[in-house]
């Protein structure tokens, strides 16, 4: 009687294997995942593992040696130009493949394929309707016109795929094992998609305020709009020094004759939920000081771009050496080249220009099919792009996106982001849809020897517009706000525009030579901190308002400094002095009526009176100040803005402060819902009392300590769903108003200081680690030093130094 046990035990075994080889919801295939030979244990890197490897590929033209230093920075030495990019692709994939694959899928609107989350369908649809793939395809066509760019990109893609070819189940990055899918082959399109992802982040929907402005225009007069969102603020401290004379403009945009009736006074109210939300650009600084202001007599260039911080970081540090290039700095896994860094002659960095390069046009479709739209007195055919969103469960969602002469129709009655009141159609006109080859920027910048090379390289940057700071060993310092910016008549693109004919279309581009720029200014320094680049005398219209405090801080401190050293620059990048608070707090204290405050409220007020206006990690005053100002904003704005139930954005902190400082009878001070007329005094006092109530509730939980109140963290790319891969409770100071603009989610994503002495002296750090693998000690090993404000000395290695004790591994590539 052994048949029964045989059957029973066999059935149990097969059932076990089956159950353990299958995914149950978010639980991975347990047998595969737990197996120490193929599962996650294989991603647990040994802390003293031998890192030497050798590879041979037929796509290589010559030999390439990669030296990994103790921080896992690869120093790539290639005999042939393209081989450096092949190996860069290989190395990026080796350390960051999951991140690259994920970013490319996100960009293309394909997250539903890999993640089982119904909320992602709208995320994917928005990416498709923004025309991300359309934009990337246009970019590839432009790259094809430049043979070297094409070769570089081909080599990069081949390198990534060469790495993917080496993968086995056991060497698969951890996230693929957790989520249960496999990496796709890399393609040139995916590299282009990454550039478009940066465009969307830095010059996309979140930077275009047309929709909230249009809604606000329905309740405010144009004069009030100008007051709430001033083009040039009182405190404006532009990138191009005030008073710089601009040439007579080469081009002038012509305002349409119908502008009053069809644009300004016409209620074009729309109500799409703004997804993504409006981005507050509160971060990113760069500056350069000339040798006349430094102790060494050589220029120093600094850059700390602020982005959403994540694990793995968007950055990856590398050195690329070829016969025509020796560049070091921060690279983007997904594209070739060094993006922020230096070579043997020059250094370069970027901040976001924050220019609005999206406008919306109202589209009239002939019928529900959305295949024809009214334009220039006739029905025009839309180009329909059918988007198939494959979901993880195997089902497919089909979305068809209508393309007009302006661009894709983002919102229409088939896509309203769950807002049923939308019944109009809006097409978007976006510079990122136009052909451009941004890869050429870095291919050339990495090889630049002087100012002329820099100008030539960055002229390829169309979108996202960036402030390119530059310094050279010959002593030059320069900055240019570079991008392809639409030539607009005054007021164009603030609000949704009529799309029935061509009269409201963009009339061209601001000429490249007239983009704001300066070389070796008399001040001896250059700074940019996302402020408006120019004062009000610039002859072209720039929509939107800009946030100024960081620019003021950089300008004031740099102008006061002499005999500058690298240590001074480190201090300045970590500076948390708030010029806004230094102006606002005395004003608020002057206007508060202390007679109305009780003892506990007075305690908070006294804490604020002692404040030195530094937003330091362990201070209480910043928490009190921010609570007070937030409360004041609500007190001043809520009543008026409540007249619209549509999406809107409050004016920023600096605008409110400047308005009440300028005019104590500022019309928004009064609460329109009460019969009496509130005074500034009353509002400031009331807002403090309300804030104090909140603070009293918060104090037992965190003692109002700033870093605890702020709660900064760095999440894994999969955000809240993978908290064990995140770092929380970061004890940093800083806020969007100060140079060290570390908010809850965004912060200095790469700090770099380059002193251009004979032998370059460079320093840098970013808050993550070189490896994207959560099982590696190199995953987050820079974070503690970054929090402490420390830097690493950047090592521009010479190949003759390969015996240096800092080298922990060598990867040799040969051609086969």
């Amino acid at each position, binding site marked *: 009687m*052994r*048949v029964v*046990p*045989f059957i029973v*035990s*066999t059935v*149990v*075994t097969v059932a*076990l*294997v089956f159950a*353990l*080889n299958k995914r149950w919801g978010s639980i991975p295939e*347990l*047998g*595969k995942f*737990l*197996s*120490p*030979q*193929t*599962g*996650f*244990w*294989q*991603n*647990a*890197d*040994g*802390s*003293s*593992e031998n890192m030497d490897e050798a590879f041979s590929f037929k796509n290589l033209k010559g030999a390439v040696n990669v030296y990994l230093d103790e921080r896992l920075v690869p120093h790539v030495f290639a005999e042939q130009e393209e081989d450096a990019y092949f190996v860069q692709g290989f190395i990026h994939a080796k350390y960051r493949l999951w991140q690259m694959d994920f970013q490319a899928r996100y960009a293309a609107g394909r997250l539903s394929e890999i993640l089982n989350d119904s909320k992602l369908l709208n995320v994917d649809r928005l990416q498709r309707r923004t025309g991300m793939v359309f934009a990337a395809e246009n970019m590839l066509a432009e790259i094809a016109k430049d043979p070297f760019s094409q070769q570089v990109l081909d080599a990069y893609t081949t390198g990534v795929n060469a790495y993917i070819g080496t993968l086995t*189940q056991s060497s698969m990055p*951890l996230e693929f094992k*957790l989520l249960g899918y496999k990496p796709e082959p890399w393609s040139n399109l995916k590299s282009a998609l990454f550039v478009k992802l940066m465009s969307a982040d830095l010059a996309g929907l979140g930077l275009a305020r047309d929709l909230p402005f249009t809604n606000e225009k329905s309740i405010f007069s144009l004069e009030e709009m100008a007051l709430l969102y001033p083009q040039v603020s009182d405190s404006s401290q532009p990138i191009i020094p005030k008073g710089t004379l601009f040439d007579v403009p080469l081009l002038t945009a012509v305002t349409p004759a119908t502008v009053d009736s069809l644009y300004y006074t016409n209620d074009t109210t729309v109500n799409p939920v703004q997804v993504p939300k409006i981005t507050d650009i509160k971060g990113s600084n760069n500056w350069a000081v000339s040798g006349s202001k430094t102790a060494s007599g050589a220029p120093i260039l600094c850059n700390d771009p602020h982005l959403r911080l994540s694990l793995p970081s968007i950055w990856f540090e590398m050195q690329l050496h070829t016969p025509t290039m020796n560049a070091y700095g921060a690279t983007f896994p997904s594209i070739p080249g060094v993006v922020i860094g230096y070579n043997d002659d020059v250094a370069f960095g970027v901040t976001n220009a924050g220019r609005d390069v999206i406008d919306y046009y109202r589209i009239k479709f002939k019928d529900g099919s959305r295949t024809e739209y009214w334009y220039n007195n006739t029905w025009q055919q839309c180009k329909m792009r059918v988007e198939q969103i494959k979901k993880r469960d195997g089902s497919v969602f089909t979305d068809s996106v209508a393309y007009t002469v302006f661009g894709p129709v983002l919102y229409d009655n088939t896509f309203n982001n769950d807002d049923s009141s939308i019944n109009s159609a809006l097409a978007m006109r976006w510079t990122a849809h136009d052909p451009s080859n941004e890869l050429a920027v870095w291919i050339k910048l990495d090889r630049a020897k002087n100012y002329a090379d820099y100008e030539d390289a960055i002229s390829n940057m169309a979108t996202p517009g960036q402030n390119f700071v530059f310094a050279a060993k010959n002593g030059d310092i320069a900055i240019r706000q570079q991008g392809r910016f639409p030539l607009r008549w005054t007021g164009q693109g603030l609000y949704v525009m009529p799309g029935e004919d061509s009269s409201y279309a963009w009339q061209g581009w601001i000429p490249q030579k007239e983009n704001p720029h300066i070389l070796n200014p008399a001040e001896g320094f250059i700074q940019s901190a996302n402020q408006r680049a120019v004062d009000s005398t610039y002859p072209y219209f720039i929509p939107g308002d800009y946030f100024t405090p960081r620019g003021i801080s950089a300008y004031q401190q740099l102008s006061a400094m002499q005999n500058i050293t690298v240590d001074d620059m480190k201090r300045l990048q970590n500076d948390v002095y708030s010029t806004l608070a230094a102006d606002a707090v005395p004003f608020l204290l002057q206007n508060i009526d202390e007679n109305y405050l009780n003892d506990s409220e007075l305690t908070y007020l006294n804490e604020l009176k002692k404040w030195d206006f530094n937003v330091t990690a362990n201070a209480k005053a910043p928490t009190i100040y921010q609570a007070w100002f937030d409360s004041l904003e609500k007190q001043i704005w809520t009543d008026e803005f409540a007249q619209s139930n549509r999406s809107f954005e409050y004016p920023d902190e600096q605008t409110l402060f400047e308005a009440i400082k300028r005019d104590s009878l500022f019309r928004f001070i009064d609460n329109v819902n009460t019969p009496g007329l509130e005074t500034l005094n009353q509002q400031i006092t009331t807002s403090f009392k309300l804030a104090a109530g909140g603070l009293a509730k918060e104090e037992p939980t965190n003692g109002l300590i700033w870093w605890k109140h702020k709660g900064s963290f760095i999440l894994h790319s999969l955000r809240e769903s*993978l*908290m*064990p*891969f995140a770092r929380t409770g970061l004890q940093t100071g800083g806020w969007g108003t100060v140079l060290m603009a570390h908010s809850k989610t965004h912060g200095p994503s790469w700090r770099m200081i380059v002193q251009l002495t004979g032998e370059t002296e460079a320093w840098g750090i970013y808050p993550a680690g070189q490896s994207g693998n*959560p*099982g*590696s*000690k190199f*995953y987050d090993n820079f974070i503690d030093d970054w929090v402490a404000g420390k830097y690493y000395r950047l090592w521009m290695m010479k190949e003759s130094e390969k015996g240096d004790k800092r080298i922990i591994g060598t990867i040799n590539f040969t051609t086969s």
Partner: protein
Amino acid sequence: MRFLLATFLTATLSLIAGIYTPWWSIAIISFLVALLIKQRFGIAFLSGFVGIFLLWGGLSFWIDAANKQVLSHKIALIFPLSGSSILLILVTAVVGALVGGFAAMSGSSLRRAERQGQVPVK
């Protein structure tokens, strides 16, 4: 002795097979070893169980030590096992061991089904 031999063979052959084949080769190896080495039914289960328990537990323990618990701690928070590396190693070992044990039982009972009536000797 047979028990030790069977356990040892299950572990080492599974280790080698695991380099080239998917994780479920542990089931095939445990099955084959039990088929070849005559053992009592319950003992066969035990040798499959212990063989894979030692292999998976040992390997993961060794990897974990070299990794200084960097990864196991995070995975043990996801699972959730309160971040305990040792618990995660135990879970790993037991999951593999169960497959090994039942597969060995199956192999052993097939052997007995073929040679009906024979009483196993030690």
